[in-house]
């Protein structure tokens, strides 16, 4: 029997609904961890990114941070934090790792979005009498939304992948089935679980693609709207 068929058989078997971690619960846990981590990271990174983008200060730091974050082996980070915080708090350790890994992308998306807004638009807003806060919230943030969404998208996908690896410390999620399958050397289990992860990742990616389309402001890339155009 074809390996993919075996994997599908494993996925659809009624055993998947029982046992220590039913598949549906695993998927739920996986999404849950991802959502919580990305939200926390966003709460930290978006305001910071907006600040950097608006004031222009700290850009080098932000770029450097994003670059350095790419070099962090997420697997090692999880194991480190789980050991440091202790077995009883392994979930917290893991979530901290996820948040740390998600911040750089969101930060970059936030500040790139604000930076990409045409300076003339910003100047025009300033000359019309908007306060710095108003400029940030009413002009730069909305126009920068597509890039911010892009950053969130990157971050989410990275976290989904890392949550999978966290199966090694028994965090649950779909990773549990991959790790168990690796230990039991049952390829149909490893492949089946991996396929679920792939589908999850692709679905989230599609969702973000749709959101990006939906938030594109009329002009697309921050071209000044008629009212604010300089004469």
């Amino acid at each position, binding site marked *: 029997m074809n390996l993919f068929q075996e994997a599908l058989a494993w996925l659809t078997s009624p055993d998947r609904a029982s046992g220590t971690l039913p598949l549906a619960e695993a998927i739920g846990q996986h999404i849950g961890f991802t959502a919580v981590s990305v939200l926390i990271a966003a709460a930290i990174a978006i305001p910071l990114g907006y600040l950097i983008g608006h004031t222009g200060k700290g850009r080098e730091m932000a770029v450097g941070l994003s670059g350095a974050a790419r*070099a962090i082996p997420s697997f090692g980070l999880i194991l480190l934090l789980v050991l440091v915080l202790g077995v009883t708090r392994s979930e917290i350790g893991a979530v901290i790792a996820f948040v740390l890994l998600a911040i750089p992308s969101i930060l970059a*998306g936030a500040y790139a979005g604000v930076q990409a807004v045409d300076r003339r638009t910003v100047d025009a807003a300033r000359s019309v009498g908007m306060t710095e806060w108003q400029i940030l919230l009413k002009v730069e943030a909305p126009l920068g939304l597509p890039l911010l969404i892009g950053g969130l998208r990157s971050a989410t996908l990275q976290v989904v992948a890392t949550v999978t690896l966290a199966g090694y410390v028994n965090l649950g999620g779909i990773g549990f089935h991959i*790790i168990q399958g690796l230990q039991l050397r049952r390829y149909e289990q490893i492949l089946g679980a991996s396929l679920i*992860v792939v589908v999850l*990742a692709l679905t989230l*990616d599609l969702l973000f693609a749709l959101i990006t389309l939906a938030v594109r402001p009329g002009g697309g890339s921050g071209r000044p709207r008629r009212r604010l155009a300089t004469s």
Partner: protein
Amino acid sequence: MNWVLDNLDLIGRLSLDHLRLSVVPIVLGFVIAIPLGWVAWRLRITGAVLLTVAGLLYTIPSIALIVALPAIIGTSLLSESNVTIALTLYAVAIMSRSVAEALGSVDTGTRQAAVAMGYSSWRRFWGVDFPLAGPVLLAGLRVVAVSTIALVTVGALVGIDSLGYLFTNGYQRRIIPEILAGLVVTMALALIVDGLLVLVGRALMPWTRRQPSASVKESAETSFGRGVNPGGAA
């Protein structure tokens, strides 16, 4: 950091293994991406398909790809070549988009001048387009190198040892300095390779030495926002 000092030879040996496992995907990825990126840049439909596939490939979490490849191409899950192929695929996915962007960043006027001067398309590509696309290519290559070096560690889950061995072994024995050493050395390797690439870039493209062009910076930065940032593959 007594543990580190006592185990320098282990760390050294694993570092060499790690580099060995990283080099092939980076180089092969770059080489394969050039024609693919060129196609993506020249042909609109094919290009769109290619880049979309590359983007989708990039969203697949690394452990899932490593596990799925044996079912698709018949490698053994326990073999190094399986991990190498997976990493190469990621490298190609990132680099193709980079090559396409790089070629697109070359000034049309310059290219037209080359045509006017009678350069054949082969010579035009290698003599004009490619060198001028250099800075953006380098930026993409740096991203590929750094993320590949980080991804090699995932191989530890399927028994392909690199510095990632320090993670699993350190976790088993509860030796925090061991895991930390793994993290630090891996990141140091990435930093060193990144630095080397920058130096190579300056050597090969002396005209960029004075000031990286604004477009390079922009494209490097905004690639984050467009989801090309290797965030997907962890």
